[in-house]
């Protein structure tokens, strides 16, 4: 363990106050804005001409919008892991990571919802889901659990911010007038009395318990969008657990990346320490092993039997045209991270950062592999259709919209960090005081 550094509360507050964008921050934000706006332009084209601008057709009727949706839902699960599961199991070192994971969860779930609207042929009829909604349809289940998850996550982001608002309000000079106004609007009712702390603590505890089943629901139901159909590759009882385990892995990868970036950029080495990378590394190894197990479980038995309906798909994935992507997702998303992170040296910040990126990229392609190839293996042969219907590669509009949604999610996180302290100030001070007392 590292030597604990003495930090007084003024120092902590100074370190953790939100900072203005530097030069690099401006460049980063501008690039993200450009990508997001380009995505908006592509979506304008789609609204104007219809889904014809995509390369989805009657056989591959779901493409990278849907796999991107699954990816976002997966990423958002990490909020519940680090905030709720770690809190309930009393994992002390989680404090500097809670807000990072919670904002990742919120922005990912928002863009999951947006991308599903992008996928709709008639987005203007969205309200039909409420006017004519059929509770028997898994889509309705998804609408219900995703909106529930969004609100719980938002509250889990907001309640721990309240004591920080009180601190932030003291630094009017530093944060600027407009932000001060915002803080006052959002948190001036917080006086920091004992009673308020009591209510807040209790609410957070209740929310943490509530969010776990809801988190399991969002991704299980998302997996059921596939598993409730007859399609080879989707018709699996393993799907819920398979998706959940993959989701925790993808989200943890994202948190590791975010930890590294915030630590470097905002010089938070005293708060996000090597110990945090070490611990997160162990967690990523465990999650990758669990996900690998579910992958074996998902593919070994059908590949052993080679049922007629499954054979074409399995061959295409293992040795056919999708094999490079399939093995890329397995190798880069699971096996290499396991082999790097089991070693202590692999759990240092920089290798962790690289592995984090690999896990996230692998996770994105993994979702592509789950959605698209299945649709190219219908029960009845693909005939009497134009040749363009028999294959799928996303159009530039699809790539632009997907990239735009990813950029959008990153923008939300970026602006959040600009406005709010990414590491909870109040909790860090409390913890430091506890440490000092115990000495």
């Amino acid at each position: 363990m590292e030597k604990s550094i003495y930090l007084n509360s003024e120092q902590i507050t100074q370190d953790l106050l939100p900072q203005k964008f530097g030069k690099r921050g401006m460049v980063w934000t501008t690039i993200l804005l450009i990508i997001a706006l380009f995505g908006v332009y592509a979506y304008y084209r789609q609204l104007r001409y219809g889904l014809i601008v995509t390369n989805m057709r009657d056989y591959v009727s779901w493409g990278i919008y849907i796999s991107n949706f699954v990816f976002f839902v997966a990423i958002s699960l990490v909020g519940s892991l680090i905030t709720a599961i770690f809190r309930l199991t009393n994992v002390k070192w989680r404090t500097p990571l809670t807000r990072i994971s919670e904002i990742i969860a919120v922005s990912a779930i928002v863009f999951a919802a947006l991308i599903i609207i992008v996928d709709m042929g008639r987005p203007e009829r969205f309200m039909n889901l409420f006017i004519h909604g059929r509770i028997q349809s898994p889509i309705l289940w998804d609408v219900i659990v995703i909106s529930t998850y969004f609100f719980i996550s938002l509250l889990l982001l907001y309640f721990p911010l309240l004591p920080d608002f009180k601190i932030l309000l003291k630094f009017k000079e530093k944060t600027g007038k407009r932000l001060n106004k915002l803080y006052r609007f959002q948190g001036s009712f917080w006086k920091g009395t004992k009673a308020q702390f009591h209510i807040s603590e209790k609410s957070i505890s209740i929310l943490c318990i509530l969010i776990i089943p809801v988190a399991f629901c969002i991704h299980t139901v998302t997996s059921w969008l596939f598993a409730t159909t007859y399609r080879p590759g989707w018709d699996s009882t393993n799907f819920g657990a398979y998706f959940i385990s993959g989701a925790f892995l993808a989200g943890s990868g994202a948190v590791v990346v975010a930890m590294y970036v915030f630590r470097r950029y905002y010089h938070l080495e005293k708060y996000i320490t090597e110990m945090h990378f070490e611990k997160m590394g162990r967690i990523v190894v465990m999650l990758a092993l669990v996900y690998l197990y579910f992958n074996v479980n998902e593919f070994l038995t059908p590949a052993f039997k080679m049922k007629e309906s499954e054979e074409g798909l399995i061959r295409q994935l293992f040795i056919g045209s999708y094999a490079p992507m399939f093995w890329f997702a397995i190798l880069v998303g699971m096996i290499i991270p396991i082999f790097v992170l089991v070693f202590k040296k692999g759990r240092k910040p920089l290798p962790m950062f690289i592995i984090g990126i690999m896990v996230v990229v692998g996770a994105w392609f993994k979702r592509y592999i789950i959605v698209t190839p299945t649709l190219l293996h219908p029960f009845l042969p693909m005939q009497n259709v134009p040749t363009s219907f028999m294959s799928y590669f996303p159009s530039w509009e699809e790539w632009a919209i997907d990239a735009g949604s990813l950029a959008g999610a990153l923008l939300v996180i970026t602006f959040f960090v600009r406005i709010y302290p990414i590491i909870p100030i109040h909790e860090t001070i409390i913890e430091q005081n506890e440490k000092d007392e115990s000495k």
Partner: protein
Amino acid sequence: MNENNTKSRREFLVAGLLASAAVAGCSTSNNPFAQDDETIKPSGQMVKLLSVDGQIIEMDKAFLKPVPDLPAVSNSEARRGIPGKKFVMVIDLSRCKNVRACQKACNHMHHVHPGQNWIKVLSMEESAHTAPYWQPTTCMHCDEPPCVKVCPVDATFKRQDGIVLIDSDRCIGCRFCMAACPYSTRVFNWEEPILSKEEAEQAYSCETSTPQKKGTVGKCDFCPDMTRKGELPHCVSACPNGVFMFGDMIQDSVTNGAETFRFSDLIKDKSGYRLLEDLGTKPSVYYLPPVNRNFPYESGLENKYQPDHTYEDAKKLSTKIN
């Protein structure tokens, strides 16, 4: 009348609807033969007509306006279906030689987008050493329809007469039904359908499945507008070889127009079966196996499906029309 025959039924209906609207707007006269539009000039061509009371009367052709034979069915009526019926189709594979007249008639009557088909005639072969055959594939109108199960907004529904239809005014275009359908029967309107202005302006009817709407799903509908009139679906009447037999399971009879069979006997005698029975979807379409065939498989090869254009070409086509 020959001129009218060359027009499509839809245009006929359009004109009829317009005419009935015009007549209704004419409050001064209840006479449907009254000249409601002063701009119409007699053409001088007279036609003989049989009046309601059995008299033969002569009318100038210019004053004739087609009137729909049945009033349009309301949405709720179209969703209920025809009471006391259970529609069923039998497809005799021993008679099919891939003429695809069914496909053409269906595409024409429902304005299916060029390149897409509601009926597909598939070249099937179970395994390497078994005999190939032609299999026309419609919507199966399953009794346990997976598409209806997953629809989040009740846009696709099962009627009491067994027909599965789509309400394109309600469909949100999520395409879950397309993923759920194991028969890949559903097609999507990826872009604005190619329709004339009059067609596009009509109110949507679940029973005719027209006019199709951009961003919604379409599929074979068993032509309930025809069955309501006691007529056969377009594919059935278009097939020159009598492959399709359509009828009512409760009456236990199916017909291809020329021949009529007792449904239960036909299925028993010829060992009828349904597609993908093991999935439990319980289709309403039965197949008779391709034995004692009227045509060898090879005779269908000359008409093998050639995608005459890519879907993208069809897009250019549509911009030309509009």
